[in-house]
């Protein structure tokens, strides 16, 4: 069930576009904001609310890599794997994270704290290698900094 607050926010987005369907991505973002991801149930709720079939909405949801259709941890680590970070050695960062957290791309730590995902260019190539955790950007990374960075997230 969509909450009153979610409905209120989705209604606002619908008011800005010609048809409710046009607000579906915004609606998915709103649901993901409150649940962390978009479950099948949430997908159905949003589809009903904006007047789309679940299949049509899922084709949109699964197109975008930052709409999560599987549960994620409390914090999502996005590791930039694009060319400037490659040249500057992002693989060491990635491998250290895999080792420290004992997970690989697409997986979540057992305590539900972190999910790690690859991400294309974060647009901070002069400060490569870079990654984001939730809304925070970390640049000019070295493996030595990782422990301290990770402790900020509980």
């Amino acid at each position, binding site marked *: 069930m969509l909450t009153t607050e979610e409905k209120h926010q989705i209604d606002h987005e619908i008011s*800005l*576009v*010609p048809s409710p*369907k*046009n*607000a*579906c*991505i*915004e609606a*998915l*973002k709103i649901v993901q904001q409150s649940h962390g991801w978009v479950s099948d149930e949430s997908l159905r709720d949003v589809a009903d609310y904006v007047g789309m079939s679940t299949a049509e909405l899922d*084709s*949109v949801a699964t*197109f*975008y*890599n*930052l*709409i999560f259709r599987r549960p994620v941890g409390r914090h999502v680590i996005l590791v930039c*794997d*694009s*060319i*400037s970070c*490659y*040249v*500057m*050695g992002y*693989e060491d960062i990635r*491998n250290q994270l895999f080792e420290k957290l004992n997970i*690989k*791309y697409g997986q979540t730590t057992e305590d539900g704290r972190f999910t790690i995902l*690859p*991400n*294309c*260019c*974060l*647009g*901070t*190539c*002069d*400060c*490569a290698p870079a990654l*984001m955790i939730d*809304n925070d*950007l970390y640049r000019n990374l070295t493996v030595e900094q990782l422990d301290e960075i990770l402790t900020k997230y509980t």
Partner: protein
Amino acid sequence: MEKPLTQHIVPGRKPLSLKEYEKVGGYQSVRKVLKEMTPQEVQTLVKDSNLRGRGGAGFNTGLKWSFVPMGPDAATPKYLVANADEMEPGTFKDRLLLEGNPQQLIEGMIVAAYAIQASISYVFLRWAYKVAAQEITQAIHEAYAAGYLGKNILGSGFDLEMHLHTGVGRYMCGEETALLNALEGKRANPRAKPPFPQVSGLFGKPTIVNNVETLCNLPHIINNGAEWFKKLGLTEDAGTKLYGVSGRVKTPGCWELPMGTTIREILEEHAGGMQDGYLFRGLLPGGASTDFLVEEHLDLPMDYPSIQAAGSRMGTGTMIILDDQTCPVGFTLNLQHFFAQESCGFCTPCREGLPWVEKILLAIDKGEGKPEHLLTLDFHTKYLGPGNTFCALAPGAMEPLQSALKYFREDFERHIHEHHCPWSKSKAWQPSI
């Protein structure tokens, strides 16, 4: 040296508030166009200035606008969209403008919207630019409060709404018709052209999509004129350009310089030259989807015609450097992995061809390559080239591949003949799984 775009940007400092921006001349161009110029006059001035689209395509901005239906019979509402979905790998120039001076972008957007008589505008911002999202939200709020946005702006009778839209990923969204689909709440597949967005764009209405850097140039062109703008460039291309350098250079960064500054000056004077212990081998001049240039090209001016004549594209003007300790096959593989992953999957050559290219490059990089693999790669550079795919993604992907096969073919052959990557000790590519 004049730096109109970045003159009020101090990295690490909060951008100017609207009031501060007005004190240094901000929003004068809005007053000028609304009070003294017709939309047609704005279009002509911008066309005459030879401002070319800074997103990479380099199309004359005023000319692009001129295809929008004007007059009382034109469909309404018309839309203006600022393409702030900077996702070309190696590109970080619009971030500087978005975080550093969002008021300048809004001012440019009002000018552009007036020129095409758009009444609704969007900033389509990539999700990763969190600081920019905050700054733009604040800047739009201030612009409404000051009467530069909303109904009857400055008593002119011109109305303009502005909204910030943050994306949810995918490189495809930077392609203007795919961006429009994303804004409409659809999968970001590109659209067939014609009809062009100027005639039938967002929600089927006339729409212009302009890059952030393009839009930020407009206030200065309005205030100082077309001739002033042309004279900023060192070559036949006009204006200044945000150039960037990333990779193993001493001081990577982004600088506003006269259009047509040579690659060598950007690389050596601004980026500080190569880091100690690293030698230059090549560069992509303007993002992942541009052809490699090498040593012999370093004295070329960075402008649209010069780089095109050398067989590449200036693209976004942000260079990525290939050094001697990075494997050219691994470098190319990283790029093709990106393009294969970001293909929207709509047209077959792109959906099937790019993963094939990636798999072959992976095999070569692992030392499992065969001589005929190079011919298959050569074939793909033609088969996925312009005209064979629905949009420019796969042809863009083929640009670094075809030029890597041209300039670094011996390195590909060494992988195949020696059955391993000669760089493997320093840089072993591992698939992103």
